């Protein structure tokens, strides 16, 4: 589809779902898309969009699902522009470009939405504000998927994220998080299936409560400073585990209690 045809989309005032994902669209999106105020699903993932992030999403207050995942978008995108999107449940933003800048702290704002699914990946998150973890996340209680990987985030492990007891997928790899993991992480995230904390500066023991994560399928704690022995019988508790990566830490002890099922 040529870009010139895309302005035609703006006439579809009653459009509710626009899904052009997994194509090779690359031109600038027309600003008149801001007219599609009934739009609930706006799905652009895995295309070749390379300009600045569109600003018309501010007007699309009916959005439930917004995804720019896997494009080459650059420039700054402020999540505060989505503050009043009270229906928003899925927000996916990632860029293959190094020049993307996702920003959540420039102004004080309070989210009207409760997200289920959030990807802010490879976006130099809050790089002008000390690369802090977005504060709006502390008002989110129904998150099931969180991917904040590849952002250079600093600070300690965001233990308040564990208020989201339904968390299934949690990826904060490739950041600069430091400090210990919460002892009771396994109690607060009982149904998590995917945990990726790799490539940070986390230290201390691997909490034995991780054995409580019965549905765990994927666990990557590699490239940190975890030390000590593995909690006893850990692997036998992880019945569903398919992928375990603990490489490049300072772990010791024998595999005596570690039967690889």
């Amino acid at each position, binding site marked *: 589809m040529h870009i010139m045809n895309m302005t035609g989309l703006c006439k579809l005032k009653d459009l509710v779902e626009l899904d052009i994902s997994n194509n090779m669209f690359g031109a600038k999106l027309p600003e008149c898309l801001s007219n599609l105020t009934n739009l609930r*699903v706006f799905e652009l993932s*895995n295309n070749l969009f390379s300009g600045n992030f569109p600003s018309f999403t501010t007007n699309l207050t009916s959005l439930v*699902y917004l995804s720019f995942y896997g494009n080459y978008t650059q420039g700054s995108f402020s999540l505060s522009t989505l503050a009043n999107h009270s229906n928003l449940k899925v927000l996916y933003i990632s860029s293959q470009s190094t020049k993307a800048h996702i920003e959540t702290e420039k102004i004080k704002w309070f989210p009207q939405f409760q997200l289920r699914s959030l990807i802010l990946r490879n976006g130099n998150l809050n790089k002008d504000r000390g690369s802090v973890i977005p504060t709006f996340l502390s008002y989110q209680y129904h998150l099931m*998927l969180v*991917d904040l990987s590849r952002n250079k985030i600093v600070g300690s492990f965001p233990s308040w994220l564990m208020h989201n007891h339904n968390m299934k997928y949690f990826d904060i790899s490739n950041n600069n998080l430091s400090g210990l993991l919460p002892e009771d992480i396994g109690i607060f995230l009982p149904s998590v299936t995917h945990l990726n904390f790799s490539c940070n500066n986390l230290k201390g023991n691997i909490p034995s409560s991780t054995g409580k994560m019965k549905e765990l399928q994927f666990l990557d704690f590699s490239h940190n400073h975890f030390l000590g022995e593995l909690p006893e019988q850990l692997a036998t508790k992880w019945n569903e585990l398919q992928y375990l990566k603990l490489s*490049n830490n300072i*772990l010791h002890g*024998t595999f*005596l209690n570690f039967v*690889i099922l």
Partner: protein
Amino acid sequence: MRFLFLNNNNFSGTLEDVFGNNTKLGLLYISNNSITGTIPIEISNMSSLEIIDLSQNNLIGSIPKFTAGSLRFLYLQKNNLTGSIPSELSESSELILLDLGDNKLSGKIPNWMDNLSRLRVLALGGNNLEGDIPIELCQLKNIDMMDLSRNKLNASIPTCFQNMSFGMHDHNPIFEALYQITKFLSERLNDILLLGRHIDNRIFDGLIWNENSFSASLTIDLPLHVDPSLNDEINLEVEFRTKLYIYSYKGKILEKMAGLDLSCNYLTGLIPSQFGNLQQIKVLNLSHNFLSGPIPITFSNLTQIESLDLSYNNLSGKIPYELTQLTSLEIFNVSYNNLTGTPPSTRQFATFVEDSYRGNPGLCGPLLNRKCEHVESSPSSKSNDNEKEETNVDMITFYWSFATSYVTILLAFITVLCINARWRMAWFYYIGKFMHTLFPAFPLY
């Protein structure tokens, strides 16, 4: 468990009873720990394994049987494994990489190696392997890197080193051979994106569609999205000695690397001119052997070569001027041979310093501070093979001349004392006086 990475930690103990009855394991990385004991026999039942990396531990015993079907990468280097290379390994015909380097393996390089026709990397360096290089190795048409260095191989180099890849073939990216993990990680990546739609069906409940109409958009099959960072996830690495150092190759660089290392053996005979057919090779190391004869002119075909080490052999003749066509050459070392004439000095050869040529008494020219006519008149002195022997000759001459002069002076002294009585009396008087001062009991004349 299907994919297990415990490498680069301080784990200890043995692998006994660790694997249970697991048949699903596809990747096993336990390298660089302090694991002891033998490789457990259960590993031969683990029929899904694609990568086994037990390198850099303290494993002992012999190499067990591995599953024939799926194994593609076997890293056992830097342990204390003994015995010979087992013939069961010939059944692992899917192997792409075999690294058994730096163990204590003995015996010969097996002649069934041609069964492993998919091999792209073969590393057997740093063992006690002896005998010849079997010609079956030349049947490994896909080989890009081969390291047989630091063994006791003692025959001549076979002349069949041609029609082998060494960078010539365009292979698929090496990690694509890892079907299981590639599929697993790609699917997870796509699952995330789909999860947003599946995660809570109620998301779309409030919309104007009923469930039936919406389910249409759920059945879209996303194309498998292979993340380029997948290669980092699966750390396929190969160590290879290049340009004086041991480098670890991985990722895209590994795909482009091509090299042959036969150094530090007891190889004899000529350098086969067929090496000139390995036109994409980047590294060739034949140093520290007993190779003789000339440097093949065909080396001028190795246009991609960056490092050529022929040092510490018995090579003779001139350095072919044609080698100046090798414009990628960064390291060139022919030191400690018996080469003659003037080294080329144009193009890349203008960058090489005296170290490249040291220990070749027959080489001359301004770089070596040796006038050519002088040296060319004396290459008949065959004993000047290299600098080591050169110093030996010097020492022998020195001892002989020292002994001769010592005896001559002693005889002359005694003769003088015999002839001249006054000098004799004075000599013994002063000897007696000297002895008296040391030992007062000594009678003074």
